[in-house]
């Protein structure tokens, strides 16, 4: 790209518009998912990313296509941001064979070897040590790819957080740990759960570079992630980002969120919406026209609708699928014979 059209944080207008489109897509996609969930098309747990779009888009924009990401059960956003087809994500939510995990994983468990999306872990913080291992495999093989690991403020309280950061630090692993501090782990307010009011002292406790970032500003997230990514890619080791954000919806579809006030929610939704904030910035700086933004949003809505339609029209897995993929070599509990119910 020519230096001339550099605009914000070294991103071209095209890139900025693309980021805006993706944020809109995450939002519309999630809204559509919520709708389908209420219609009974989607089951189990579903954790929406609405409100946190700037984190996933900002951070993943700072990655290379061949870098890898790991996330928690709140991963629709990360999946789409990393390039997963909305159709494949929605189909997975519908439990259809066309889903990215053949319908076997659902909302919490999405994967793509091609895109470097390495799940979706439903055990809080379990992705943290695994991410260290993936980073180790890159270091071991002399690759210049890196790993981004997303987790919540609640994951910080788990022993795995501590063990993983210590290991990543002493082995100088190419991994960026990104804490999406959305202020709550289910109903538990972060200030009640943490013995510290920021992750900076925790970063220091593992001699890691640590940064606190405004998670409602996609550009700030992008810039901080960029620094951490370069740090990792240049062999300097891991770092820890605390990205302050807020989930606009309940913890999962069934959570009425009685543990926080409607005022607090309104406050965030109206004054801190990451998409509105980004749009204002783009307009104020004449980096985009209202028409372009509207078009992005319209396209996003369309794609979300299309994904739902695709999912709806896709077939469920055949019952044989129940017994495939248990073991790579199809071995079973009883050798010589396969017992099915």
């Amino acid at each position, binding site marked *: 790209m020519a230096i001339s059209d550099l605009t914000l944080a070294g991103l071209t207008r095209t890139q900025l518009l693309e980021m805006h489109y993706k944020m809109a897509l995450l939002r519309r996609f999630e809204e559509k998912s919520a709708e389908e969930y209420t219609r009974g098309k989607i089951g189990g747990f579903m954790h929406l990313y609405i409100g946190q779009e700037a984190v996933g888009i900002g951070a993943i924009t700072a990655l290379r296509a061949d870098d890898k990401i790991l996330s928690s059960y709140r991963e629709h956003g990360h999946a789409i941001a990393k390039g997963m087809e909305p159709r494949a994500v929605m189909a997975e939510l519908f439990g259809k064979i066309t889903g990215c995990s053949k319908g076997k994983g659902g909302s919490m468990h999405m994967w793509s070897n091609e895109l470097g999306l390495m799940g979706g872990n439903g055990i809080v913080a379990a992705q943290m040590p695994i991410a260290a291992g993936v980073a180790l495999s890159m270091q071991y093989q002399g690759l210049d790819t890196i790993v981004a690991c997303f987790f919540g403020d609640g994951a910080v309280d788990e022993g795995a957080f501590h063990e993983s950061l210590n290991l990543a630090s002493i082995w100088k692993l190419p991994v960026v740990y990104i804490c999406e501090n959305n202020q709550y782990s289910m109903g538990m307010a972060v200030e009640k759960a943490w013995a510290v009011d920021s992750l900076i002292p925790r970063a220091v406790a593992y001699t890691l570079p640590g940064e606190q970032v405004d998670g409602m500003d996609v550009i700030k997230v992008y810039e901080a992630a960029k620094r951490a990514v370069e740090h990792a890619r240049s062999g300097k080791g891991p770092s820890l980002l605390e990205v302050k954000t807020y989930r606009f919806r309940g913890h999962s579809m069934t959570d009425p969120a009685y543990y926080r006030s409607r005022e607090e929610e309104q406050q965030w939704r109206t004054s801190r919406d990451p998409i509105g904030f980004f749009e204002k910035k783009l307009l104020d700086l004449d980096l985009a026209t209202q028409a372009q933004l509207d078009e992005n949003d319209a396209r996003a809505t369309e794609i979300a609708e299309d994904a739902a339609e695709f999912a709806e029209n896709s077939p469920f897995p055949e019952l044989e699928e129940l017994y495939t993929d248990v073991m790579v070599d199809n071995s079973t509990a009883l050798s010589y014979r396969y017992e099915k*119910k």
Partner: protein
Amino acid sequence: MRTITYRDALREAIREEMLRDERIFILGEDIAGYGGTYAVSKGLFEEFGEKRVRDTPLAEEAITGAAIGAALGGLRPILELMTINFSLLASDLLVNSAAKFHYMFGGQPQIPLVVRMPGGGGAQRGAQHSQMFESWYAHIPGLKVVMPATPYDAKGMLKSAVRDPNPVLFIEHELLYNVKGEVPDEGVEYTVPLDRGEVKREGQHVTIITFSRMLHVTLQAAEELAEEGIQAEVIDLRSIRPIDIDLILDSVKKTNRVVIAEEGWKYFGTGQGLAALIYEFAFDYMDAPIQHVNSADVPMPYSKVLERAALPNKSDVVNAVKAIVPQALVHG
């Protein structure tokens, strides 16, 4: 008698015990402000306050260790682990500390601890959130493991668990909380022992042994079988360790045929352990091989069509019974 849900029965047991004994308190993730993931502790925070109803950080090792330590210090904690799936993170403390201290320290320490946690599938929660690990814990000397299936048993056994001087794993099921059943009026004090199963339906043709959510599926299967003249005796284990072996043997010696219906995986699970025990003590009474009804031997899939196929259902139980109960026996 009133008809209340399994959830309310549990809450009543906790509340009544907390009113009875100052040393009893509850702790766990989101049990206070959130009212409990499955709303079992709803309202208790408002009634008893933060000293006795304690929200904890997401730290299964710390909260389980803290509960063990509190019990050692003279309190009577009721720890809620959000689901049994997460108990693996606390399994070291449960197995290597809670289960062993009384023995390895020569009988000095006591750990009057109750760990409540739901298990099970059926709500499309996927592979990591649909498991039953009762056989893991029932394998360990030093622990008690109980799994009530009805509101009556839930309330009565939770009270017994709280009063028990040993660590008791109290395993619930995510799909049982809304199940309704008869429970004595409030104030009418009763308990259910931790080491007794119960015949939930009498019959002479076959004994179906089950526990937890599968009891209800099994009772429906028994109804269907009855229409065809097959009278199944349904035994609700209620407790996995200790196991009420003589109750089982009495029934088996009468029916000479056994089906074990459980939700967990088959191999090296509860049902196989139970079958081995029955053969060991009643070998000569067995007229047919024990039939096993289990979930498919796979991680639980999310897709509803696959999950439905993976879980054991009424017809699985019916077919298992028919496989060993000859027509002659019934109509002859």
